[in-house]
């Protein structure tokens, strides 16, 4: 049992000093950007009822939720997702608010991943949700929010990849497959498993045009122009044209914003979360083989709570962004000038006076709690103290400069 005293459960971690500095800096910047774009912060509880989540969601995710039982025997879960609780909040408490309703959050989510391999079970998501607008302008708005947030953080070389889940959902729903086969088909498309996808679609009853589209869709990704040009030569049925047009409009408008270099299209993009109904997107950077953010439109989710309201949004995975920024060397620590006061005369009054003048300047000021000279020096070096002020004679402090402090530098 000793090991349980010193080890952490799988998938959680301690954040030491620097990690906390970076996290706070990144999260503050993200929240600032969200606020400037008109989003208002909300927060939902860490515990929710298990029954909050729909049958479909639970079918796929219930194994991945941390469950608890409260004193009355009700089943609770640790927040496994931010969007569903916020949808609940909007449907039950903010129905009569003015729309479009733009909300944002930074919260922890808890998920059990069966296969660990370094995957976190607790991590922070920073995201936005935009309620009440069903046109593509809202999709553009949240994509722009993602791009501007990443730019504000100083991240370079990132891509937001946009897809249209409606296209795939409609193609597949027409095939009248069993739930299990549908699931498989989504899985093959999501994982660009061309081998099994080909095998499966050629074995089912499907009209020739749809077959061609279904096989080609996962292979269609890259710059919007290239994708849409290829798409034009494909036999897209009329019922799918609106979905394609939506996607085209989104790309066009993002380009008009001047952010064309940051977007690409993947028609085979499928999202794990079943609640998406339209434009979906994911963000990543070349330097990190993992997804930084994902989101999309979920027009039907609020119906679970008895309200009809279209919505779209996305979430950043904060620690993935930290990782990417670290790789790109965009994380710098700005350290304030750090002063240590050593009061050898027990001159409380004078010490406090000195302390207050430094505090006013915004410096980090500490009164030394150590007496021995070597301890003071060791502490100062390890904490990177810039100056030591010693009160040896009344009114005449002696100053030792350990490290020249330059404004804004670390």
């Amino acid at each position, binding site marked *: 049992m000793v090991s349980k005293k010193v080890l952490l459960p799988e998938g959680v971690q301690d954040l030491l000093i620097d990690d906390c500095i970076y996290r706070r800096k990144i999260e503050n910047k993200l929240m600032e950007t969200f606020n400037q774009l008109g989003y208002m912060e909300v927060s939902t509880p860490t515990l929710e009822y298990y029954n909050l989540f729909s049958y479909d969601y639970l079918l796929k995710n219930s194994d991945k939720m941390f469950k608890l039982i409260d004193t009355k025997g009700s089943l609770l879960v640790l927040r496994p997702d931010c969007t569903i609780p916020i949808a609940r909040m909007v449907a039950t408490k903010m129905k009569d608010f003015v729309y479009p309703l733009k909300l944002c959050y930074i919260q922890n989510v808890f998920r059990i991943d069966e*296969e660990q*391999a*370094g995957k976190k079970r607790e991590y922070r998501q920073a995201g936005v949700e935009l309620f009440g607008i069903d046109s593509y302008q809202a999709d553009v708005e949240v994509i722009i929010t993602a791009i501007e947030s990443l730019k504000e953080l100083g991240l370079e070389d990132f*891509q937001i*990849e946009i897809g249209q889940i409606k296209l795939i959902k409609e193609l597949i729903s027409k095939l009248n497959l069993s739930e299990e086969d549908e699931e498989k088909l989504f899985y093959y498309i999501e*994982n*660009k*498993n*061309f*081998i*099994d996808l080909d095998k499966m679609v050629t074995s089912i009853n499907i009209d020739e045009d749809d077959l061609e589209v279904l096989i080609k869709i996962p292979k269609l*990704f*890259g710059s919007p122009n290239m994708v849409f040009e290829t798409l034009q030569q494909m036999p897209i049925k009329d019922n799918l044209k609106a979905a394609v047009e939506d996607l085209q409009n989104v790309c066009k408008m993002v380009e008009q914003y001047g952010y064309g270099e940051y977007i*690409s299209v*993947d028609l085979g993009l499928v999202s794990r979360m079943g609640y998406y109904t339209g434009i979906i997107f994911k963000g*990543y*950077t*070349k330097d*990190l*083989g*993992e*997804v930084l953010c994902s989101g999309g439109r979920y027009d039907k989710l609020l119906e679970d709570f008895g309200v009809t309201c279209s919505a779209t949004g996305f979430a950043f995975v904060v620690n993935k962004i930290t990782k990417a920024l670290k790789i790109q060397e965009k994380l710098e620590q700005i350290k304030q000038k750090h002063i240590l006061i050593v009061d050898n005369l027990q001159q409380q009054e004078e010490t406090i006076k000195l302390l207050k003048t430094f505090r006013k300047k915004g410096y980090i000021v500490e009164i030394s709690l150590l007496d021995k000279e070597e301890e003071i020096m060791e502490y100062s070096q390890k904490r990177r103290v810039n100056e030591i002020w010693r009160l040896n004679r009344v009114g005449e402090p002696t100053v030792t400069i350990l490290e020249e402090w330059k404004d804004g530098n670390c």
Partner: protein
Amino acid sequence: METVKIGLTKGRLAEDAINLLSKCGINCSSLKEKNRKLVFDIPENQIQVILLKAVDVTTYVEHGVVDIGIVGKDVLLEQEKQLYEIVDLKFGKCKISVAGKENFSEVSKKHLRVATKYPNIAKNYFVNKGQSVEIIKHEGSVELAPLMGLTDVIVDIVETGNTLKANGLVIYEDIADISARLVVNKVSYKTKKNELAKIIEAITKVID
């Protein structure tokens, strides 16, 4: 052009994979030397090859530490990873099957004991059949398990069937066909699109 990192499964699959890469015009001479190196730079083709244990190939690809991996379908079936499975390389062919003693008559026993290196594949297979099972994870010569009475059956890779035969075991059912697959990291596939497309195209041509 950026360097493409390729993870290969050590052992027999690596030999086939290296042959394949050579046929694609990649200079694999350093890979063919017998030594204990694990990382090989091939600057003339802007490629880096890394030799890994099969289960690690998928992990490295999933996390984007390597861009491409060559790994058996058995590994992909056993652990669902977030990656793209793009090409069937058509070598390393074998089957994953249920096998046991020749005269065993209780295959549809109420509670079957199964020894396997592939607990997830075995579990999924029997769950779908509605068969209740107890899975015993078994490393190394799985054939021993039914012989020594540890379990009723085994779920394992069968290539020629010689090992089974030599130990008096027979195949009851096949679960899946296995062959080597080309897997790609989801982000690299987009961010190194041109570099990867070139390699994937060359590979597809060779195997067709």
